[in-house]
């Protein structure tokens, strides 16, 4: 017996999509398989790791614990939707690039979406609040220190209205898959202060902006 399909509409990153999916299609799989938006990553599929976190009507949820049919008609923002309208990195993405907030990048999309909502709700997080903001996301690579720095940096960038107005040259080409490891490559190709090996310089940056305390 063929599995019953349900007709649903999902608005993802501002674009409405009409889909036919079985009821058991997880939102994470609808995004990745049906819409080819592979920025949303899937780690544990039981709500623990946070890699699949997307914004549902603006609030972070685990895409692996929501059925696509159950959120029909709602708005989803994935990591692909966090870039600026001109394609430049959004403030949280920019902060991750500057602070070396990622290594393999697997966990990164979930952090980026979570922090985007976090600094919207709390634009000036304390160090403790920055740590708390990411307490529900797991990262096996970074040891979290640089992710916490990135939260604090992202809050500054967002308050300043973004890297360009904040005096930071981005030099990054528009990318539609900024949640993927491609960010790392783009950053590493920059001859600027964002270069992957440039740890000391980056620490200085953090110091001059009052971060990393």
């Amino acid at each position, binding site marked *: 017996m063929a599995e019953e399909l349900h007709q649903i509409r999902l608005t993802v990153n501002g674009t409405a999509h009409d889909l036919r999916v079985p009821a058991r299609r997880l939102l994470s799989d609808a995004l990745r398989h049906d819409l080819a938006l592979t920025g949303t990553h899937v780690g544990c*599929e039981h709500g623990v790791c946070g890699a699949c976190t997307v914004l549902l009507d603006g609030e972070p949820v685990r895409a692996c*614990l929501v*059925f696509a049919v*159950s959120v029909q008609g709602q708005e989803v923002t994935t990591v692909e939707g966090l870039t600026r309208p001109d394609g430049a990195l959004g403030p949280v993405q920019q902060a991750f690039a500057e602070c070396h907030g990622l290594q393999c990048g697997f966990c990164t999309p979930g952090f980026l979406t979570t922090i985007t909502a976090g600094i919207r709700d709390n634009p000036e997080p304390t160090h403790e609040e920055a740590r708390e903001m990411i307490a*529900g996301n797991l990262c096996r690579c970074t040891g979290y220190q640089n992710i916490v720095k990135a939260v604090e940096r992202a809050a500054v960038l967002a308050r300043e209205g973004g890297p360009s107005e904040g005096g930071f040259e981005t030099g990054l080409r528009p990318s539609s898959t900024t949640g993927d490891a491609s960010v790392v490559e783009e950053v590493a190709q920059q001859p600027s202060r964002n270069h992957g090996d440039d740890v000391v310089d980056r620490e200085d940056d953090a110091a001059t902006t009052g971060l990393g305390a």
Partner: protein
Amino acid sequence: MKPAPFGYLRPGTLAEAVAALAGDPGAKVLAGGQSLVPLLNMRLAAPTTLIDLNALPGLDDVTVDEAGVRVGALARHAAVLASVEARRVQPLVAMALSNVAHPTIRNRGTTVGSLVHADAAAEMPVVLVLTGGSLEVEGPAGRRTVAASELFVGPLETSLHHDEIAVSAHFPALAPGAGAAFEEIARRHGDYALVGAGAIVDGDSVRVGFLSVSDLPTVVDLSGVAEADLGEAALAELEPGDDIHASADYRAQLVRVLTPRVVAAAREHAAHRLGRTRG
């Protein structure tokens, strides 16, 4: 892993939802899905049909009056936690909720769902018992109110019938001179507790509810017990269990540590509230 196939219904009225549930013994209700979907993904549950409550109107309210806090079946943990009025009238609800998972899970999971799920390691069942709360449920025969003391019958098991849907939960107000506190120990912040304890102190009355100690949320009356004996007095009423998370001995030790701590915090809370009314 992915769930096995299931049928899906998205009723627009509670009556339709109840009728659908009554008509299919293999069906299950879907609320926030934060407990059910992991079970489906791991194929530990395989319902024939999911009856999705998320399109039902009027169930997401948190209504507060001086008698207590009423939480609708679709009110997310996050909405309950954010209610300033709820926090004023029954502070224990928010104290416990801030220990339930992480904010992202709380954005989707419902407080009523967590009561019906009845996990012995969950925070809200013990809060419902300790505050003397109740669940309002609707079945084919109509509505009834189930007192918390009658609700929890085993691990992941309540006295609800298969064809009943919980409509709301009621947490009675904290009495004016009383104080409340909640403490738990988990391996990582946001994890299920190894042991947790909530306390309500009202004059000479001292009651402490424990989670993750036994199979059921258990409330122990510790009125009149000397400060130094609180932990042992609580243990006399409890049978700490063993599992992969902690040994029974370790749980007993956590009861010894947490009981005096949570009672002292509840006394302090009572004094603070009294001071505020007088001031």
